[in-house]
């Protein structure tokens, strides 16, 4: 033995690590996908494409798919229109308060659209605040059906939540366009418009496309928002509704496969697109930004603040709802109270769910930290075969929506000791962990890469085993990265929607999000739900702030494709 093993960088310890990881991904990521695909095509032991044909021939199914595609396209389009000018100003100009505005853009992300929707319903209902205001002012004499048809509300809600993601990606794409290429175009006589159309836009297109894919897929697969707006004719809600009879009706599997294929194709395209172009246009990006005139600075501030205020309307409505005692036929509540916060803390459903969420998120975060360190170590410090596979597996959850993972778990593990109907705790933990693992791997990977290998070698040289030198030298040095990654994992796990809604069947296992969803059916439900939403929002905001402190400018990188 020896020679071959050593050439491949395989020690028994590393071999064990990589095997553990492959088994984990195999069981909890790949197998559920295969299982669902198989069930979509093989019914009663026979191969069939019947359910895919039904998607087209059955008008209801076809309509559902069209709705979802339209929803995705609409959200992508509107976020683009909002983000492109914002990003252009940010990436190419210097002005007072730039850092502040940059931070402000991220604020809307601290609220899952699902919770914001609860507040929105209160504000924009037929006799909600906005209509009452307008009626009072005499601007309208009939209440407007803002959320009419349902789709509009969902689009607004998702746009307000997702434009920061689009903004981050477009800004990055613009920043990666070497300004000297633009200068060269100016040099040969290109005007402003043709410069953007012929040079800048084509060069930033790969980066933009990547952002657009994230936004489209997010909107296409979002379960919580349409559910709250009771806009049920979209694919995710259909899948959710088919959960109960999944063993009789394989249509749910077929829809999941459709969704999976679409997301994987789109992400694959984005990735190829990126790798083809990105290297070429990525030069040394220095000193590209020009100062902005005073009026332009003011205009920029007004625009950014305006959009942020719009984006915060759901947040305000949630806060308002949570403290409204009497709110009937008046624009603002006529009486305020803190009783819903008190109810959050002595209502059994809510206290249990907060406890559940804290526990589940903590354990899944711990799992992410351990797995993240392992993977980052194997990727950066060894040359063992299968590294690329591991890398792809760790990043795959970015492309697999939560609803697919959760649905797959229900089907795959039903009747096993992991069955979510008996006790969803293990699967909830694993689902949370798998979903947020990419953030953790990226954070740890960056840390390992920034830490010189010779520091570990020096430790080994004075007698520390490889494992020990990682533990005593590298991990303390990259602790900030790990903490930041961990906080992100934890915060997102706390407000994870689709897996929580799907996997938690019994009330005593409800996480926060499922409890909020459940409360919606009670008369005072929206108020308590909003109070919980505010608490969740505060938690997520604190988490993001701390993570942002620790990670500094690198924060944005975690949300890019």
């Amino acid at each position, binding site marked *: 033995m*020896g*020679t071959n093993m*050593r*050439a491949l960088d395989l020690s028994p310890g590393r071999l064990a690590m990589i095997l553990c990881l492959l088994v984990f991904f195999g069981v909890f990521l790949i197998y559920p996908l295969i299982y669902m695909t198989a069930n979509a095509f093989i019914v009663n032991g026979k191969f069939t494409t019947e359910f895919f044909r039904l998607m087209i021939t059955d008008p209801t199914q076809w309509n559902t798919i069209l709705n979802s595609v339209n929803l995705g396209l609409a959200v992508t389009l509107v976020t683009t229109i909002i983000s492109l000018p914002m990003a252009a100003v940010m990436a190419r100009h210097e002005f007072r308060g730039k850092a502040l505005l940059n931070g402000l853009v991220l604020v809307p992300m601290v609220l899952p659209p699902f919770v914001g929707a609860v507040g929105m319903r209160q504000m924009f209902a037929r006799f909600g605040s906005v209509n009452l205001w307008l009626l009072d002012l005499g601007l309208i004499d009939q209440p407007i059906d803002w959320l009419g048809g349902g789709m509009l509300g969902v689009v607004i809600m998702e746009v307000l939540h997702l434009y920061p993601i689009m903004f981050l990606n477009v800004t990055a794409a613009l920043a990666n366009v070497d300004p000297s290429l633009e200068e060269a175009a100016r040099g040969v006589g290109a005007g402003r418009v043709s410069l953007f159309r012929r040079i800048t836009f084509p060069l930033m297109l790969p980066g933009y496309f990547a952002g657009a894919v994230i936004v489209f897929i997010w909107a296409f697969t979002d379960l919580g928002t349409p559910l709250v707006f009771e806009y049920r004719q979209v694919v995710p809600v259909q899948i959710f509704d088919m959960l109960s009879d999944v063993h009789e009706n394989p249509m749910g599997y077929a829809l999941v496969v459709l969704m999976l294929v679409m997301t994987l194709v789109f992400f694959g395209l984005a990735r190829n697109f990126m790798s083809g172009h990105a290297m070429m246009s990525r030069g040394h990006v220095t000193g590209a930004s020009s100062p902005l005139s005073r009026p332009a600075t003011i205009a920029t501030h007004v625009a950014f603040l305006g959009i942020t205020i719009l984006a915060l309307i759901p947040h305000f409505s949630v806060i308002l709802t949570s403290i409204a005692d009497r709110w009937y036929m008046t624009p603002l509540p006529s009486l305020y109270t803190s009783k819903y916060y008190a109810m959050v803390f002595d209502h059994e459903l809510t206290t249990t769910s907060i406890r559940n969420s804290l526990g589940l998120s903590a354990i899944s975060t711990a799992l992410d930290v351990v797995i993240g360190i392992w993977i980052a170590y194997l990727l950066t410090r060894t040359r063992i075969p299968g590294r690329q596979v591991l890398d792809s597996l760790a990043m795959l959850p970015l492309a697999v929506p939560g609803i697919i993972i959760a649905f797959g778990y229900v089907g795959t593990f039903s009747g096993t000791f992991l069955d979510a109907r008996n006790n969803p705790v293990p699967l909830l933990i694993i689902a949370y962990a798998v979903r947020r693992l990419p953030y953790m791997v990226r954070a740890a990977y960056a840390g390992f890469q920034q830490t*010189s290998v*010779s*520091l570990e*070698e*020096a*430790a*080994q*040289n*004075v*007698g*520390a*085993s*490889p494992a*020990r*030198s990682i533990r*005593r*030298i590298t991990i*303390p*040095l990259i602790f900030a990265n790990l903490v930041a990654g961990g906080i992100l994992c934890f915060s997102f796990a706390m407000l994870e929607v689709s897996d929580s809604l799907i996997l938690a069947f019994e009330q005593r296992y409800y996480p926060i999000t499922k409890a909020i969803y459940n409360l919606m059916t009670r008369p005072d439900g929206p108020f308590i739900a909003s109070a919980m939403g505010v608490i969740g929002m505060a938690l997520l905001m604190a988490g993001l702030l701390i993570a942002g402190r620790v990670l500094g400018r690198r924060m944005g990188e975690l949300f890019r494709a």
Partner: protein
Amino acid sequence: MTSITIDSVLKSFGDVRAVNKVSVSIEAGELFFLLGPSGCGKTTLLRLLAGFYTPESGRILFDDSDVSNTPPHKRNTGMVFQNYALWPHMTVSQNLAFGLEMHKIPGDQRDERVRRALESVRLDMLAERYPNQLSGGQQQRVALARALVLEPGVVLLDEPLSNLDARLRLDMRHEIKRIHTETGITMVYVTHDQDEALSMADRIAVMRDGVIEQIGSPHELYDAPANRFVAQFMGETNLIEGKVVSGDDPIVVETDLGMFNVASRKTTAEIGDSVYCSIRPEKIACIENTTAAQNTVAGKIEEVFFLGDHEQYRVVSASGEVLRVSNRDSRGRVKGTDILLGFGPDDAVVLHGN
């Protein structure tokens, strides 16, 4: 004190044989240099000694025990890294104590040994500083102290002075040499700087393309290089192409500059061989008259370089050959002067053509 035996060690990266069946014996207590241009395999060889690489074939012995497959943390070597690799989250004394802790040395002894090691590099007053609060030279000393505190059998130094400025580098040469003398530890020192090697080494191995070209004392390498590469790498030299016309002592070489008599030493040149005569610039004298005892070349000074303690001339001979000449006496010659150059048979070396 540990002796090292490297026995036809092979290590390749992809298709490149970074260390190609190298054999060397390093004696206990020696200050041994691995010298060569970048990419010659010297650092790879050092890392093989530290255990960061394992040889594909061949063996490495520390004294009589085969350590070829011993992992780094069980090798008992102390390494000084090129970038020092001080742990930034530990103070100077914690950097030193870490290895002692790994070796389970009890606390009170630990403190004592850290103190002594820091004293030996004269840094005892900086024990509680963090590495980023130290100057480059101080960091270098900490790295050295960390390598020494475990009292290893072998100390490995990987271009330890390359990150220091010229002045500090000279000071640190003395420092390392002093520590070597005081401790008597076997040291293997990698560098690409031939001045460093010549001034410090007990013996030097000159490497190129994964093989050792020559091993010897600084004197041997400088005065009797084994081939053109070594002659050129160890300081400046003039290489004059020629053919052997008489094989006895002295060897007579016919060149474009005339017939040269060269002491044969151990050269195995036979009549008809194509060879090079290597003559160091400082071995060439500026003379007044032709003498029978010397080889002479007439030429014209084309350029004068003033270097403080000496001058260097670029002399072009009648046949168009260029010679570099260092002159310490009778300075002040100017460009364009005709000059007569002379060197004795012992001042030149015959090297084979390849």
